């Protein structure tokens, strides 16, 4: 983590795609050592909301706040270090687990648990094995973890591993924002944000 974790929050932020508002406005702070769960039905804009927070998608209504100032989308990755787990895991099927890990984290393979599995090309992995590998890419040194359905294909052992990682990260002051419809580390939750579909007033 950087010297002092910047104060991160959002103000009247709607999840929106192609200028269409998907959810009602959300105003929230994400202080350090907090675990926020984003809830909502399928298609309610959870992933889109996370993409706004990561600076990948400029919101057409609302703002991201960093240290009390409005931050432009391009400024977010400059001011915060982010671990992002999305639907697309950014890994390449023709590369081995180790090679994908080194490319995406910039760390050497020594920091990954030794396993014969990671010497095989990723295209031979099951969905759960693939997701397990992405969990290893979460970096305790980053300011924020943005998790998009991180537990969808995990078995019980790996789910426990993920919950331990979240607990450990929160203990050292990290910020976790997770979009999920499955229960995940429920005992650690600081706040729950439920995304409601936006309905334009007549």
């Amino acid at each position, binding site marked *: 983590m950087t010297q002092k974790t910047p104060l991160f929050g959002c103000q009247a932020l709607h999840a929106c795609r192609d200028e269409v508002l998907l959810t009602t406005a959300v105003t929230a702070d994400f202080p350090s050592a907090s675990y926020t769960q984003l809830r909502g039905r399928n298609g309610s804009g959870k992933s889109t909301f996370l993409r706004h927070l*990561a*600076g*990948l998608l400029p919101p057409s209504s609302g703002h991201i706040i960093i240290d009390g100032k409005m931050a432009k989308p391009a400024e977010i990755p400059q001011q915060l270090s*982010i671990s992002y787990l*999305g639907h697309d*895991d950014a890994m390449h099927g*023709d590369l081995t687990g180790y090679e994908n890990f080194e490319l995406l984290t910039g760390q050497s393979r020594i920091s990954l648990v030794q396993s014969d599995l990671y010497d095989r090309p990723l295209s031979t992995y099951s969905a759960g094995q693939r997701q397990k590998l992405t969990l290893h890419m979460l970096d305790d040194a980053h300011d924020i973890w943005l998790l998009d359905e991180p537990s969808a294909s995990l078995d019980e052992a790996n789910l426990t591993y993920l919950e331990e990682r979240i607990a450990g990260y929160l203990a050292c002051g990290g910020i976790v924002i997770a979009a999920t419809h499955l229960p995940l580390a429920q005992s650690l939750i600081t706040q729950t944000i439920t995304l409601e579909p936006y309905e334009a007033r007549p």
Partner: protein
Amino acid sequence: MMRQVFTRDLRLAMRRPGDVISTVGFFLMIATLFPLAIGPDSKMLALMTSSILWIAVLLASLPSFDRLFVDDYHTGFLDRLVISNAALWEYALVRIISHFCIMGLPLIAALPIMALFFAIPLSALPLLALIIAVGLFALTLLGAIAASLTLGARRASLLSAILILPLAFPIVIFGTLASQAVLEGQDYSAHFALLGASCLILLVVSPAATFYALRYAIEER
């Protein structure tokens, strides 16, 4: 990060050599079609050698440009670059260079086979290879702009070909004239200088243009 992207590209090219082999095969096939269509008139073919070479280079390299960013776009790798605050223009430049090494250099390596088909003197080959290398690099720079602009579009390959071709005319014209001059033993420096100038202009313009197009494509994803 950028060195890792370059090694990754080389590694992937080694693991699926089919892409390169088919591009080189396509290149040779186009060139062999011309003698079949025109007839075995060696004088006529000698006159057209440089034009045939450049048409083959252009047509063989066009389809490969689509591959520049599309994989990284769909896997979400581009998203990670943005999130980790990596310089997208640097990434674009690395991809252009690695694509040139993986797809362009094998085409140039196939030139001796072309020399057999068209009775090109071996002494002219090194210069010809240099001219085609500069032209191919310029084409790849152009291809990167088109490939990034058409990311996520349907029928992207056709669309990017339509975008590239008109802009590729100067490169093909200067390249053909320079190669023709080399084959005829005349002074090629003026045409070659113009070809080099086009390449340098694109070297400045392309990473910047590609940067904005990629940024836009990521937002629209």
